[in-house]
């Protein structure tokens, strides 16, 4: 890819007409010389700078040029980088692109901020902040233990909903302003890829604008996934999009799916007085979490709360409430496919995951076929076409590629792409990306779970060890009367490499970064255990965790190359 970038850069100032043919030919060649591309890196970067200047000079002319040309890559570009989708991924990419000196535009068909800011992480944190406090104030026992006396705590639903909404608009404005002030063009309308390096955008009913860009990043994100048979009416059968508006707090809500989204909402709803029934297709609640953490989390987050659950069942049919009838949920056994039970509840929240939002992107124009809606990419987020070949100058980041459906992963991928298009090869290590679930207490993790690590160890023939520490031994946690919690380290005793860290306990989401940074930088357990932590802080949980790990004394050489970030 580096090679193809450099050769294209050379072609611009010359503006040779049959650049299309040259590009194709070069791209094939580029694949062949891929192994030596690293050697050309420095050279290519120098050439890049030249090309960028030429781009800027040609910008005015190119507008008319691009309008007249309907196919083939244009000779010069309106932008160095166009990002389709102004979510957290697109925003992260845009900011980094500006820092790298790229002329950048971002196309957004809805509102800036995408799912995370408007319908996801951000407003849900506002609700969880409320639920955390409610939970604390309602916990008489806890309050008494601290010597506090609190009269019956109550809440105003609309005010809580407003808090979430206000937070979303505040963050949205911050995002918009940060991009505007840096000179990122925010183009309104749905973006469609017309051909290589060419994007059309516009609102429905308005004339389309066509722009060209040297590189394009698809960052269109995802929408809530609703399985077949489920009728979402937005009132009684809802997705996270509706739930975050908190228009009602139902007495009894069924949550389909017990992953992050479902868990967080169960935390919110039970704190606000709802009773919750989980419906999980797998045999265990909280799939995807490390089993040990999941078990403990269940003991703390599910058992003592007004929650029951059905596992190993699909919600095959959900009918919204109408005509005085409640929401009816038909459960089917996941294995035998036989009807198992019927629930009638006041509301149902569909939290079965998210589906990529890639329709109408014009992928067919460049011969890209989505896989279950996801845009196929390689480890450098370069889009692959139907034949498995790289599509030049086209990248896809975030939920739309499905690699790791997390806002900060999208942003990291975006930064990685910008690094590449500005001439520095970069591969993102997804195992160093932390994830967090903001229940009370929180759950966080980075790297492999214990079963995953075991499988890898077996395959590759190494040993793994587990170290654990409890929050019960931590001064700060005990001072807060929040001793419930566990931190778990999965590592290689032979090399000291950290394979995974899982935390369940107070502020786990903030604590994980010491571990994720260690994984990202390749820090070994035997090195990090000498790092000093302030006393008394929750971070000492990790300090103790690292100190309790036993590394074979013979290890002296470092863990190979630190993983690049």
């Amino acid at each position, binding site marked *: 890819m580096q090679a193809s970038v450099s050769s294209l850069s050379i072609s611009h100032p010359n503006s040779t007409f049959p650049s299309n043919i040259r590009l194709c030919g070069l791209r094939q060649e580029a694949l062949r010389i891929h192994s030596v591309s690293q050697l050309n890196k420095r050279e290519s970067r120098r050439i890049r700078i030249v090309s960028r200047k030429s781009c800027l000079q040609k910008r005015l002319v190119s507008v008319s040029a691009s309008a007249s040309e309907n196919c083939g890559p244009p000779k010069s570009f309106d932008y160095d980088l166009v990002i389709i989708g102004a979510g957290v991924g697109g925003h992260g990419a845009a900011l980094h692109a500006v820092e790298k000196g790229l002329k950048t535009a971002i196309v957004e068909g809805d509102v800036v901020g995408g799912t995370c800011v408007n319908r996801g992480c951000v407003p849900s944190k506002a609700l969880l902040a409320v639920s955390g406090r409610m939970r604390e104030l309602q916990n008489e026992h806890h309050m008494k233990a601290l010597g506090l006396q609190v009269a019956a705590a109550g809440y105003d639903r609309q005010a809580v909903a407003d808090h979430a909404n206000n937070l979303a608009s505040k963050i949205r404005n911050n995002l918009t302003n940060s991009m505007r002030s840096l000179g990122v063009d925010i183009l309104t309308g749905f973006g469609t890829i017309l051909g290589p390096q060419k994007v059309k955008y516009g609102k429905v009913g308005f004339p389309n604008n066509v722009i060209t860009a040297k590189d394009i990043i698809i960052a269109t994100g995802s929408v809530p996934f609703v399985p077949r048979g489920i009728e979402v009416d937005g009132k009684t059968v809802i997705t996270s999009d509706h739930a975050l508006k908190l228009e009602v707090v139902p007495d009894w809500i069924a949550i389909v799916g017990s992953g992050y989204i479902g868990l967080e909402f169960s935390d919110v709803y039970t704190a606000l007085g709802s009773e919750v029934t989980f419906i999980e297709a797998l045999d265990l609640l909280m799939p995807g979490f490390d089993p040990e953490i999941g078990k403990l989390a269940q003991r703390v987050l599910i058992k003592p709360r*007004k929650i029951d659950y059905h596992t190993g069942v699909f919600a095959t049919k959900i009918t919204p409430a109408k005509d005085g009838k409640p929401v009816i949920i038909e459960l089917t056994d996941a294995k035998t496919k036989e009807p198992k039970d019927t629930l009638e509840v006041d509301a149902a929240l569909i939290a079965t995951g998210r589906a990529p939002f890639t329709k109408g992107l014009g992928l067919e124009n460049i011969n890209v076929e989505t896989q279950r809606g996801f845009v196929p990419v390689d480890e450098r987020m370069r889009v692959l076409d139907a034949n498995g070949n790289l599509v030049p100058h086209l990248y896809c980041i975030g939920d739309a590629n499905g690699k790791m459906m997390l806002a900060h992963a999208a942003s990291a991928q975006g930064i990685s792409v910008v690094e590449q298009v500005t001439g520095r090869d970069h591969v993102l290590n997804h195992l160093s990306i932390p994830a967090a679930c903001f229940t009370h207490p929180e759950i966080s993790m980075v790297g492999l779970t214990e079963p995953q690590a075991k499988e890898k160890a077996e395959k590759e023939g190494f040993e793994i060890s587990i170290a654990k520490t409890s929050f019960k031994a931590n001064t700060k946690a005990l001072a807060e009367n929040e001793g419930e919690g566990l931190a778990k380290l999965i590592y290689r005793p032979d090399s000291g490499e950290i394979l995974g860290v899982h935390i369940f306990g107070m502020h786990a989401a903030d604590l994980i970064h010491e571990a994720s940074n260690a994984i990202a930088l390749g820090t070994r357990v035997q090195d990090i255990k000498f790092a000093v932590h302030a006393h008394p802080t929750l971070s000492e949980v990790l300090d103790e965790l690292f100190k309790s790990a036993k590394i074979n004394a013979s290890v002296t050489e470092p863990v190979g190359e630190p993983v690049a970030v």
Partner: protein
Amino acid sequence: MSHLLQTTFVPATSPSLRRPLTRTTHYPTRALHIQSKIREIFMPALSSTMTEGKIVSWIKSEGEKLSKGDSVVVVESDKADMDVESFYDGYLAAIMVDEGLSAPVGAPIALLAESEEEIAAALAQISSSSSAAPAPDPAPAPATAPDSSTSNDGPGAITGVSSASVSENFSSRSSVANGAMGSSVHPASEGGKRVVASPYAKKLAKEFGLDLRGLVGSGPNGRVVAKDVEAAVAAAAAAKVSASGAALASEITKPSGGGTAVDLGSVVPFTTMQNAVSRNMVESLSVPTFRVGYTITTDALDALYKKIKSKGVTMTAMLAKATALALVKHPIVNSSCRDGKSFTHNSNINIAVAVAIDGGLITPVLQDADKIDIYSLSRKWKELVDKARAKQLQPHEYNTGTFTLSNLGMFGVDRFDAILPPGTGAIMAVGASQPTLVGTKDGRIGLKNQMQVNVTADHRVIYGADLAAFLQTLAKIIEDPKDLTL
């Protein structure tokens, strides 16, 4: 028809008294009861806490023709006024409960005749049964199979059944209740074969070992919700205390007989509540208890009571306070032994006091009775009693007692003995304070007000000397009650 209810604590559970569990009746049949072709309209249970309803107004008048679905009467429950509809065509033959009057849930309030000719027969029936229960057939009617056409084919089938049976009575009455409560029945309960209960209700039921089947819910569509479970548990708890001989006031004030006739010779399975009582009573047998009695002179207490009565102080609060103050000096009497291997020194002195409320008995708890002044304690007590009457006590307000007081003095009972409620260390039975002729140590004879108290305690942790010392302290406090008002 109130005899069929036997004054249950939670009226809505009454339909389950004798019906097989599989028939929780979820057909929107209203007001039907077959007595030849004259049906009774019953007072419906419009909520789980409703025990009786007041007739706000009769929409139809006697002799008027009714069509299926017509509103016949407006009933005021503890929650709202609601229209009660007829599920049958016919004539409103006779109104048995006039406007402004109340009737217990399940009692007939009117008769419905199928034809005009039968109005006279209906009227005759009323006069013959002379207001007391026109009990159709005293036998429990096992002949009516649970899956008879009655419940499966809906109301239409009933019309053809000529012999009235007790079970039909029940199904019809509960149908009235369900129909009135939420216009639609459980869509998925398959005629009551399964329990529709909220997650928390299920959790609570499991915790309390309560069988949810047979419990009629007050939630949307008849769903069993947490408060239904709490009510059922409270009923069971109350019954437990009542059965422990603590205070049988309810039975005394409402003697069985008169309006509450029993089907003689019939075998009646336990209700959920009775099951809970039974379990608790059997459990109490595993606790080795003993009793110590004491006679206490109450002249000074009576005098103090007269003085501060105007400030809203109640005798119950004074007794609770005195007991709590004595317990402060004898913490062992406030302890409890749960596993037979260890015992707990309870950190708070929570005095549970048995109170008779209609249809049962409950033990509201005066928490920290030793720390709260007598005036606040009295106010708290009033509040608890009001809540108990409204059946709004929260679980912590009736199940956190560490020492129980039971007072039957108001009925003239001079001494009795109580069964120790499991999980607590001691219970004190308080008799009436009566003028007694006593000889004093200085050789005089005088009249003094005296009452007898009798403490039942768990001998695994509380020994005779403990109780004796405790009672001595209590007597001192009551005989010189100045500490009570501190």
